[in-house]
């Protein structure tokens, strides 16, 4: 009979120790890789950003110096912060409203059988699937009042051209137009999935009671779809409130500061002017706005589900 070498026995005990540890603490061990990953790529950067917000630091010149809440006091003296908030509310309010309304209407239109519906839907999804910076660059050229194709088309059918992104008065609506073109399909997709999962019974009951299409939409579809709409709005607002690619690529915040959202301004301060401390403080404000907006939305979504 052969004896088992002591080495192997020791390895076996070690292995069984590990496996029994895992068995006893499954709730800790299995999510650990994800938790560690999240900690490294989410918690640490946010924490560092928060720390920088209380410092004065020009990148490359010395180390961050703690200055307390001076950066946050400076926020109130800086009129580009107020401008950034205004532009942010104007841009996000207009684009989110339009995307939600159009997205819902188009989803309702697609939510029925018609010939070639799959092809139409596939084409319709295209803007959502395209790379933001690439399409923004194309829009930038199309929106040029002198050499852009939009004014060429308008004037060729006898309409007056617009200054589009080149005038402080029209720049935000022009950017909203691009954002709506790009992101409405996403809302449509989410709402369409929601519509497909709705129960059939309430509709049959309503039809038997003699309700018309508008009444069915208003009293049945809309209340049932509300949680989905709010979820879509939440998802979209996360990106939209800190919209960067489209605005930065097309206008960089111009003309002047007419399309400079708070988020874009914080980027300029941190990476254009190298003032990482003040830039971080601005970033914290944007973070809080997005956070509060989403907490409110989530409350609304939960209460909508209770109905």
């Amino acid at each position, binding site marked *: 009979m052969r004896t088992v070498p002591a080495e192997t026995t020791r390895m076996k005990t070690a292995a069984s120790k590990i496996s029994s540890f895992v068995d006893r603490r499954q709730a800790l061990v299995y999510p650990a890789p994800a938790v560690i990953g999240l900690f490294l790529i989410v918690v640490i950067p946010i924490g560092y950003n928060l720390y920088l917000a209380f410092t004065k630091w020009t990148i490359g*010149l010395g180390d961050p110096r703690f200055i307390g809440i001076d950066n946050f006091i400076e926020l109130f003296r800086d009129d580009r912060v107020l401008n950034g908030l205004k532009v942010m509310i104007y841009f996000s309010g207009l684009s989110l409203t339009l995307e939600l309304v159009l997205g819902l209407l188009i989803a309702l239109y697609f939510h029925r059988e018609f010939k070639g519906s799959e092809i139409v839907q596939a084409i319709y999804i295209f803007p959502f699937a395209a790379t933001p910076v690439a399409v923004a660059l194309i829009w930038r050229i199309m929106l040029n009042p002198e050499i852009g194709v939009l004014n060429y088309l308008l004037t060729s059918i006898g309409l007056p051209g617009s200054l589009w992104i080149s005038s402080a008065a029209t720049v935000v609506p022009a950017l909203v137009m691009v954002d709506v073109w790009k992101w409405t399909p996403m809302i449509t997709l989410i709402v369409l999935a929601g519509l497909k999962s709705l129960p059939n019974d309430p509709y049959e009951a309503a039809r038997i009671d003699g309700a018309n299409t508008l009444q069915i939409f208003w009293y049945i579809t809309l209340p049932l779809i509300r949680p989905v709409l709010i979820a879509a709005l939440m998802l979209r607002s996360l990106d939209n409130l800190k919209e960067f690619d489209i605005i930065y690529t097309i206008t960089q915040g111009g*003309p002047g500061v007419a399309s400079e959202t708070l988020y874009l301004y914080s980027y300029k301060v941190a990476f254009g002017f190298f003032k990482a401390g003040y830039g971080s403080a601005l970033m914290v404000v944007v973070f809080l706005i997005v956070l509060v907006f989403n907490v409110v939305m989530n409350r609304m979504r939960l209460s909508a589900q209770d109905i």
Partner: protein
Amino acid sequence: MPKKMIFLLIGALLCVGMVSAAVAGSVDWKQFQGTEIRFLMNKHPFTTSIEPKVAEFEKMTGIKVNMEVFPEDQFRNKRMIELNAGGTVDGYMIMPGQAKLHYWKAGWLKPLDDYIADPALTEADWDVKDFFAGPMKGSSMDGKQIGIVINAEASLLSYRKDLFERFKVKVPDTMQELEEAAKFFTGKEVDGKKMVGITLRGKGAAATSQWVDFLYSFGGSWTNAEGKSNLASPESIAAFKFYGDLLRNYGPQGGTMLHWSESTSIFMEGKAAMIFDANVFKSLYENPKESKVAGKVGYTTIPAGPAGKVPHVSNWSLAISGTSTPERQKAAWLFIQWATNKANVLDALMAGVPAGRASAWNSPDYKSKDATPDWTAGSLKSFEIGQPQWNPPVLNVPEIRDITGLVIVDAIEGKDVAASAKKAAEEMNKKMEM
């Protein structure tokens, strides 16, 4: 195909010639064989000209060169972030007038004087005295050379020679004549196109580098004798106002969003009678594949304002990273020395990159092939009379340019320039104290 073969042969012979010429000098070009160096480059005509020849250098020295090229905005951000992280960058392109104060204070610039003086590292025929003195002085800090000039840039008034001749308009030599000529062409139908008089950069911070020539020519300045902002002085306000009015009244629509790419596009489309921008863009205007006005463009210096003609001269330089290792720094120096040698600078000039070396401009080869002598004359004149300080003399150049750019936008939109300039001056003073 035989033609191609001949070119290849000539190329090969030139390579051999260069290698042997280098071997003949005092420098052992093989001394850093096996070293690998990394350069960050801006997408610039000079880079385009030198890039295909890097293999030649690698063969001659045994040094491996990794060149990474980015468009300007990304380039600036990447360069700063990499240098701040203390990474593996050994050399990079820099516009000293934009970034040298910041980079010098941060310790990212290696002084080059010791290398230049060392015959084991620098060939005598590289000839440091051949570079233009102004840009070389601009590429120095506290008396130390921190970069080697690869080009010199000045802005020129470029105009449609054919139209000025056809309508018998005088080429502007004063600001008043500039306005008259711009007015004359605005709205004129030429070959079925409605013209604008002039196109200029108007996009905030990006416009300041061209507007500054008007600032100086009107007698204004960034700062006064006490080092405080001078943006709200009557002369500076006059420059803002003239520039803004010119673009609003006689320029394309949407002037406040014109960067150089939009402005030059409009000129190359044949929609503008004049453009004021950097002389390097000649290579765009004169490219028949891209430009409808190739061969029809004349060039002259900035028209004289109340303070005369005061253009700015700027330049790009190649610099060595202060954070690299001594051996890689020396290898990087060999690369810079080679890239800025007489032959390579002349080649770049032939490709339209205004050279920072006198020998290139004076070379009989260049003179005999020069298709735009007025461009050559205008450029050289501007280098001679130009002001090397083209950015605000502050540590945080981008921030002050941004503040100044907002006044330019207000001027183009016809707002109250004096009030806007006063506000900008206050901001500027505040930021300079910080």
